[in-house]
């Protein structure tokens, strides 16, 4: 039986269509993917992302432990600051993609991991722990809600005294929200997975329903709607954000996955560092490209990518972009085979669909 988030009964009450994802029964959609997608782009959407896992590292060697686990350089993080990274194995294959935050106290570290990989990740971390460090899996105690969209900050600001205007992207703040005084885990983070401005709020699981209700009420007048995993997927792909297990796994290194920017080879020893140095020097054999299809066809995971009729790779994620009005995809292809090319074809159930090679960030919000 699938696990349930603390907001499961709220989703049922809202008439959500539920789907199993990462071991959890999650809302796929409420009013419809298109409507929810456009609401987030133009107004705001409220997501339950409590399936995500949170792992806390404490102790004097917390930072050193996380530093050896991930590819990015967390020594650069100030207190209450976060960054995106991947966690690799000794061969440079991606074990998971994570967000690492240094706690408000500047000492402990919180690593946010994917739901489907949580158990694997926690075992991986515990097998490699050293020195004065303790690892706590907080996932079942913490609910995570995301408010995303151009009106997200205005909505959340109604419920908290925290100065959200001064909360920079990839920073976190502890705050009382919706009258819920829960200083232990209640944290507002200016992060997201949609390409829009917004926040992710972690809160004690037992108070999640109270926060959900307060946010829905505060957001209603500003056009916010509850949004499910369907819209989350179309939004994240438009924004060029990756999905672990579909866009990358342990058979792919971050350079091939287009995530080489998360690898800081000069930070000192870390797991996978030697392999990644060799891959970078030799040049990865594969690369991840963005595709914009000419028609409304949808290229989907596993479809072949062709150049002059020859298979050169396959589609990782594909969907219809409601913002662009065309099919979009990201694909893992042979690097040499696309050098100098501006277009390829995708084999969609036997039909050859032409696609233009574009940056994987298909959508970039206008910043003011």
């Amino acid at each position, binding site marked *: 039986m699938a696990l349930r988030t603390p907001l499961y009964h709220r989703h049922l009450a809202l008439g959500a269509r539920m789907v199993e994802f990462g071991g959890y029964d999650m809302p*796929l959609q409420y009013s419809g*993917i298109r409507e929810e997608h456009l609401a987030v782009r133009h107004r705001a959407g409220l997501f339950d992302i409590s399936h995500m896992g949170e792992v806390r590292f404490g102790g004097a060697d917390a930072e050193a432990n996380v530093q050896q686990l991930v590819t990015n350089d967390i020594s650069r993080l100030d207190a209450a600051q976060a960054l995106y990274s991947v966690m690799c194995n000794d061969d440079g294959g991606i074990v998971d993609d994570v967000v690492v935050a240094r706690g408000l106290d500047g000492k402990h570290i919180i690593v946010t991991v994917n739901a489907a990989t949580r158990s694997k990740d926690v075992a991986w971390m515990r097998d490699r722990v050293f020195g004065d460090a303790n690892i706590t899996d907080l996932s079942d105690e913490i609910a995570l809600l995301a408010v995303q969209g151009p009106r997200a900050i205005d909505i959340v600001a109604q419920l908290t005294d925290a100065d959200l205007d001064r909360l920079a992207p990839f920073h976190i703040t502890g705050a009382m929200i919706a009258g819920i005084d829960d200083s232990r885990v209640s944290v507002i983070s200016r992060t997201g997975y949609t390409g829009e401005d917004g926040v992710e709020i972690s809160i004690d699981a037992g108070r999640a329903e109270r926060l959900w209700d307060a946010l829905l009420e505060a957001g209603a007048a500003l056009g916010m709607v509850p949004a499910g995993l*369907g819209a989350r997927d179309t939004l994240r792909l438009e924004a060029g954000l990756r999905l672990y297990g579909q866009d990358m796994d342990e058979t792919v290194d971050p350079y091939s996955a287009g995530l080489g920017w998360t690898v800081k080879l000069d930070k000192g020893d870390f797991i996978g560092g030697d392999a990644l140095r060799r891959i970078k020097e030799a040049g990865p054999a594969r690369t991840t490209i963005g595709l914009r299809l000419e028609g*409304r*066809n*949808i290229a989907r995971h596993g479809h072949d990518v062709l150049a002059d009729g020859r298979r050169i790779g396959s589609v990782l994620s594909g969907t*219809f972009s409601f913002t662009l009005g065309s099919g979009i995809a990201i694909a893992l292809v042979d690097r040499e085979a696309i050098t100098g090319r501006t277009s390829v074809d995708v084999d969609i159930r036997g039909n050859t669909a032409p696609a233009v090679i574009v940056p994987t960030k298909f959508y970039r919000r206008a910043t003011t």
Partner: protein
Amino acid sequence: MPDLSSYRFTSSHEWVATVDGVTRVGITDYAQAQLGDVIFLELPDVDTVLRSGDRFGVIESVKAASDLYAPVGGRVAKVNTALTDAPETVNSDPYGEGWMLQLSDVDESAAALLDEAAYTGLTEGH
């Protein structure tokens, strides 16, 4: 809900109806709701001859691509070209403006069709 007394249905969720001498084919309200937002339709050329049960096209939503099957045999007299630019019509009006094919030379001999009550029973069993 439109009057569906002249509509008949397949277990694969297509409908066929002859209204004022014109036979049309589409998918059911249950099917469009299951698919979610329809993005793209691949429909046959005019004059294609279909036998009942033949795959006649593909419907894509954000979630999935599904095959479409002919509820009866016949010749494709028209395809609903309005769906090319507005595939979401299948969601908003599946039994009306969301029709997909118009058939001539209709052949029901090998068709396995359900009436409205039987089809409703089928979907409620899900």
